[in-house]
């Protein structure tokens, strides 16, 4: 099937039930997206699919024909950080960092739909993303800061 990842078209031939996560990581070599649980419990595998945040471990290849996928690598780069990534850097959010690709993709998709969230909105949007290191206080600060930066932008 044909899909576009971070603006680059790809053609892959895999089983219909292979999750997007593994298409990205093991077929296309896009490793910013992480495997944490495989069962929609951790959010480490979050990417956007046609603009919506999804758990890539839950999206079968069969649904990918013509899809536009953006992973953390497509959001921004070290030399050209997305606003959410700037906020993450400013607040020094990461510890081990393994969850952070998913956290940032979730936050970016959420803020693009709700640019002026309340604290309760943030809690609702971000609670599906586990952080075993417990960086939640900084995630909250960074999301709020990114929201105000987006509004100023």
């Amino acid at each position, binding site marked *: 099937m044909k899909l576009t990842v971070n603006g680059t078209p790809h053609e892959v031939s895999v*089983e219909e039930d*292979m*999750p997007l*996560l*593994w298409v990205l*990581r*093991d*077929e296309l070599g896009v*490793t*910013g*997206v*992480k*495997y*944490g*649980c*495989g*069962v929609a*419990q*951790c959010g*480490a595998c979050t990417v956007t699919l046609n603009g919506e945040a999804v758990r890539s471990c839950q999206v079968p290849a069969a649904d990918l024909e013509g899809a536009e996928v953006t*992973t*953390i*690598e497509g*959001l*921004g*780069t*070290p030399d050209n*950080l997305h606003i959410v*990534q700037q906020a*993450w*850097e400013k607040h*020094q*959010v*990461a*510890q*081990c*960092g*393994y*969850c*952070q*690709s998913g956290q*940032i993709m979730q936050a970016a998709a959420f803020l693009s739909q709700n640019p002026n969230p309340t604290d309760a909105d*943030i*809690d*609702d949007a*971000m*609670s*599906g*993303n*586990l*952080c*075993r*290191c*417990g*960086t*939640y*206080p*900084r*995630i*909250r600060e960074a999301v709020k800061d990114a929201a105000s930066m987006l509004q100023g932008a």
Partner: protein
Amino acid sequence: MSRFGKIARRSFLIGSAAVVGGVAFGVYKAKTPFPNPNLDDLAPGSASFNPWVIIDSDKITLIAPHADKGQGIFSAQAAMIAEELDVALDDVEISFGVPDRAYYNTAAMDAMAGYPMYDNSPAAERMRGVLGGVIKLVMPMMATGGSSAIPDSYDKLREAGAIARETLKLAASQNTGVPVDQLKTEGGAVLFPDGSAVKYTELAELASTIDPVTDVTLRDPKEWKILGKPMKRADMVAKSTGTLQYGIDFRTEGMLHATVKMNPRQGGALNSYDASAAENMRGVKKILPVQNGVAVVADNTWRAIQAANTITFDWGPAPYPAEQDDHWHTLAGAFSEEFLNADARTVGDAGAAEGTSVIGEYRSPYLAHAPLEPLNATVLVTDDRVDIWTGHQIQTMLEQRVADITGHDVENVHLHNMFMGGSFGHRLEFGFVDQAAEIANQIRGTPVQLTYSREEDFAHDYPRHITMGRGVAKVKDGKVNALDVQIAGQSVMKSQMGRIGMSLPGPDAQLHEGAWDAPYFNLLNLRVRSYAVENLAPVSSWRAVGAGPNVFIYETLLDEAIHAAGADPLMERIRLMGHEPSVKVLEAVGDMCNWAGADLGNGRGRGVAYGFSFGVPVATIVEVVNTDDAIKLEKVWVAGDVGKVIDPVNLDNLAKGGTVFGLGHAMNCEITYSDGMAEQANYYDFEAMRLNQCPEIEFRALENGEKIRGFGEPPIPPSAPALGNAIFAATGKRIREMPFNKHIDFV
């Protein structure tokens, strides 16, 4: 027989740690540095002044050998070198380097000298010095653990930076005739009195020809430009852009992906299996035996996991009780002389002390480490050498184990240590690397990445040890007069060391850590005893190890006693406390939340707890509110004393993250066994804390302690009892068993 071999035949006990070897060689030998491993393949024209600094004509490389599991030590090590070397972190490369005994850890042994970590008497210091020396002679182990990376690095790395700086100045002086004492350094260059400068990189070739200057003086912290100031971690941008490569992200030409299935009754036998369905599945390359299990090698991780799930097994029984209740029964029956691990502390006579009795029994369950990156290791075995790409906390020992599996000389086994997506003690274990080596050794020439499925990771975690506490307190005249704390647990050190073929002939100090050394010196009557059982589920060090369960037991019993006495939970702790830095953390946390002046109103409660672990006193206050029928965590205040703050930003992150970790597991998590298998298989059974449950947390760092300490673990122990004590204050309900959600609901 080699000298090492001869020493190894003797063994003696220091404190609770068995150390193989003798002190006969004298500390002077222990002080002689190991050869610098960077010199082995140093390019011509490059200079390496010591194991931590390499400079060539185009770059400066700082070696940060301690493993980074998320605690930020990669960046902190480089900062310590850079402070003395006068380079900006943006202008250097940082590398984990190659595993070598030159990077052996002495600070990790400090906790094992048999003295409380606040005891800096000459006798205690002498014993720590001896231990460090012995370790260097017989088993110079490169390891990261026990919150020891900061204390281990603090002097060594600043010295390494200063040595490099002074040697570069000497080279500049020799080149120009300007005396060394007229030279300054800044921004990676030597500055001359006339304002001109020469870059370190330009001096590298000349510097490589002169002997390093070793007589250096470290700068006064008042002069620090990097350390002690808010830093930007060197790994932060990479971790925010998906560009940091963890072990699981390693890719190389021709690499295959594997997974394993091992007996979920840990340590039980594999009787037989049928992999015929897996063999013909798409992408499957090989089905291979590994010790007590089976590996599937495929061209994609998902395909390997799918195929492995079709294999049927006949597994042998577990070598421990099959049902969880029997684990608790075993502990309940262990409070007797037969199982005595240590009479860890006796002050006065807790048994005979007068007063009204307060009695409690406490339980702390098994807990999985479950770092977010599942266990994985990539190995390439060829006839000449072995390469391993994984994140591990005991690097040199890992290379030796792999050498034993593949039959190579250890010199030809090369670990490339990788960033870890968490560990919490998980990556002190070797099983997953052993299995990756076994697989790769059967397909020599092909690199293979072994990845555990999340379910396999849970099934094969060696969890935190199970602990039961029994306590009797006596209260009299509005004060706590006595505490008798008895702790029975599965011996974590015996279990863990047993898996690497080592024995622990002495008592296991982890079974009373955090209780025997709690510096409540004004408590007139105290007894702390610990009891050890073996043959329960195999267990391993879990962040904060023994202090986690023990501080929960001690501080809950103490809180019950204080309430029974009618005293103030914070003021009575301060009254009992006899260690000045600990008094200060209690006062600080009380000040932060306005303990005395706060009017909480109905349904709200605050609990305080104190924990001493890894040399660090920490005090935590939790405030909860009892909403309709569930408890909500509102706010937490934490104060800790690390002696000297290296990076206030990262320290704050560790304090809050550690508190979330301690609270989340206390609220929501346990591993239980049924039919010999862990009943929890994925995060839906083991959520710890999610963002919606996370309270606001405030942290204050203090610097009254005499020594610099690490903070990866110390925030954990007081968080659970502070929460339990807060729930009591808000509801009148005393919870003596973790996880608390077995007894009360949380919002």
